[in-house]
Structure formats: C-alpha cells, structure tokens
C-alpha cells in the first residue's frame, strides 16, 4: 500500500495555530504607568506621529499602483497603528485616559504630531518621500529609545524598531526605483522630496519636554547625524541631491498644525464621536 496525501491535508502555510488572544495584552510595555506628566507628554508626541502616519497610509488601500503595494502599505500602516496604540495607552496612564480617548476625543490643537506626518499623500512618489524621511527618522529614534531608562518606552521601542527596519527598507527600495526608473518617475520622486523636505527640520528640534527627561527621552537633535548618514547613502545610490529648501516654521509639537490635519481627524474620529462607546 502506497501512502498518499490528499490535497486537503497539505497546509500551504505550514503549521499555523491561532490562539484566542487579547489584543491589549499584545501591546508592548503594557504593564507600566507613566510616572510624570513629561513622560506622558513625550509618549503622546511619538504616539501622535505614528497614529497620523498610519491613518495617512491607510488611505492608499485600494488606490496604490498595484494590489501588492496596497498590501505593503497597509501592513506598514498596521505596524504604525500598533506603535501608536502602545504609546498612547502609555501616555494615558498618567491621567487615566484610554488610547481611544486620546485618538478619538482630542481636538486638533491637542495633537502633538510633527508636520511631516501631516503632509498629504500626494502622488505615490510623494508618499514614498514622506515615508523615507519618516522611517529613517523613526529607526534612529527607536533604536536610541530602546535603551531608555523608562522600561515601558524601552520595550515599545525595542519591538517597534524591528518593524521600522522593514518600513525603511521598503521606502529605500522604492526611492531607488522611482529615481532610477523612467523620466516621469524620477521627476515625481525629485518633486516629492522637494515638497517633503521643509518638514524635516522640525523632527530634530529640541524642546520641552525632552530637555526635562535626560536618560528617558532621546534628544531629537542627537538623531540628525544618523539620519543624514542614511539619507546621504540612499541619495548617492539613487543619484539624488538633498533639496535646497527653507525649513518650515512648523510647530506640531506646540499644537499648531498643517492645514490637512483637521480633515484627517474629522475622517478618523467621525465614527467614534457619532457613536460613543461603539464596538464591533
């Protein structure tokens, strides 16, 4: 008798078991409570950056150049949403607010996201330009933050940095392909970088509360060299130049926002505000 395997018995994905999980238990650093208003504020900064960028990338689903790219950008958006949830949950522990309170029931001036993340998607090249800056910056940030003296921030950063390593790779690959593709793709990539670059400077400005949190927070200015080295290497390979543009005044960390944030929040928050407590 010859042993045979029917097609039903072949699991193309190998042995996968899905346990019943509580999503909240998967959040990194979920045991800790923020011990000061400054730490909570810092977590809010970073959480808002991730939340806004995640929401922006979600708008590409079903609109990306190919189905495969819909999936890639959606995966990146979901990773960022996970980071945002961890950071906002942690920020909320200081004054007993939930991650949902912070995401859905704050108004525009209460957000602390930097202007880079609030920039509109534009065309695919502009999204990739924003994504390149965002992921290179976030990689440097979370790598440094993973040795924070605050255990929760360190745990969140250690989990996030592995995912952002992939986001960075994705952005770099697309930057190289758009810059080295057709005349049209190169023109759009150069234009996307030009439109994005005014908002780079804000990411590296030191202000409260980071200067009150030595050893806990990472000083933004300390990340500039690492960021520049990666960007220079990518631009050298792609034959691109750093755009010569004036930095924007920006002001997201102080609650002053780019004109597109209000529209984004209206769309993101409408369901939670119209049906408070809604679950599905």
């Amino acid at each position, binding site marked *: 008798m010859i042993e045979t395997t029917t097609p039903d018995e072949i699991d193309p*994905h190998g*042995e*996968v078991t899905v346990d019943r999980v509580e999503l909240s238990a998967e959040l990194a650093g979920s045991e800790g409570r923020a011990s000061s208003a400054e730490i909570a504020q810092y977590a809010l900064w970073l959480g808002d950056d991730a939340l806004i960028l995640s929401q922006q990338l979600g708008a590409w689903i079903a609109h990306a*150049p190919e*189905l495969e790219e819909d*999936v890639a950008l959606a995966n990146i958006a979901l990773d960022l949403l996970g980071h945002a949830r961890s950071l906002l949950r942690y920020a909320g522990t200081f004054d007993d607010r939930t991650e949902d309170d912070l995401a859905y029931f704050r108004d525009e001036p209460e957000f602390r996201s930097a202007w880079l993340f609030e920039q509109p998607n534009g065309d695919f090249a502009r999204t990739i330009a924003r994504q390149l800056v965002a992921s290179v910056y976030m990689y440097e940030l979370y790598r440094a933050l993973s040795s924070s003296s605050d255990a929760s921030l360190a745990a969140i950063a250690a989990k996030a940095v592995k995912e952002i390593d992939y986001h960075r790779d994705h952005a770099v*690959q697309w930057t190289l392909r758009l810059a080295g593709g057709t005349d049209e793709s190169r023109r759009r990539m150069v234009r996307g970088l030009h439109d994005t670059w005014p908002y780079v400077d804000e990411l590296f400005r030191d202000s409260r509360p980071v200067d009150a949190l030595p050893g806990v927070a990472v000083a933004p200015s300390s990340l500039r060299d690492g960021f520049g080295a990666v960007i220079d290497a990518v631009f050298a390979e792609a034959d691109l130049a750093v755009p010569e543009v004036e930095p924007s005044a920006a002001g997201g960390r102080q609650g002053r926002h780019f004109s597109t944030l209000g529209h984004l929040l209206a769309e993101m928050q409408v369901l939670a505000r119209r049906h408070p407590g809604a679950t599905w």
Partner: protein
Amino acid sequence: MTTPGGSDRETWPLFEVFVRAGRGLSHVHAGSLHAPDPEMALRNARDLYTRRGEGTSVWVVPADAITTSDPDAKGAFFESPAGKNYRHAVYYTASEGVPHL
C-alpha cells in the same frame, strides 16, 4: 522584458512564491504575485504570504521561468500506476546468497 510602467499598458511581471515552513521541510508553492523585479517580489511575498510567522525561507521565481506540464495532457502524463505492480520492488524475491540486496 520591457520596463514595468514604461507604457500605460505595461504591468509588472508575474512571480511564483515558494515558502518553506521550517527546517528540513521543502519549499511549498504558496501563490503568485506581481512585482517590478525579483528584489521587490521577495518583499511583496513577505507581506502577502508570511505575515503570520509561516516561513523560515522564501523563494520567488519568475513565472515565465517555469516550464509546466500541459493541463490537457493530464491523462497521459499522470496515468495511475494501477495494474503496474511490477513497479513495486516488494513483488520481487531476493536471490539466495545475496543477503544484503
């Protein structure tokens, strides 16, 4: 192969994806995808087919590099071995004096 995106009608080429679930297992066909080149195909394969921790290794192969059997010739190609028991060594007896055959 023309440059993907070089004209409005040009789509990305097709790749077949093979995922190995664990050490000692073989790569199993998981599906296919479009990508502009092999490097991006590998990344797309990771997003599409290994997001739940399935794989330890992924291969991507340009679909046009695979030569396939003809689905219409299935009968002749995969005819059952029924009635060909002589193919199974169990029906042969070992010769005397050849203990280690």
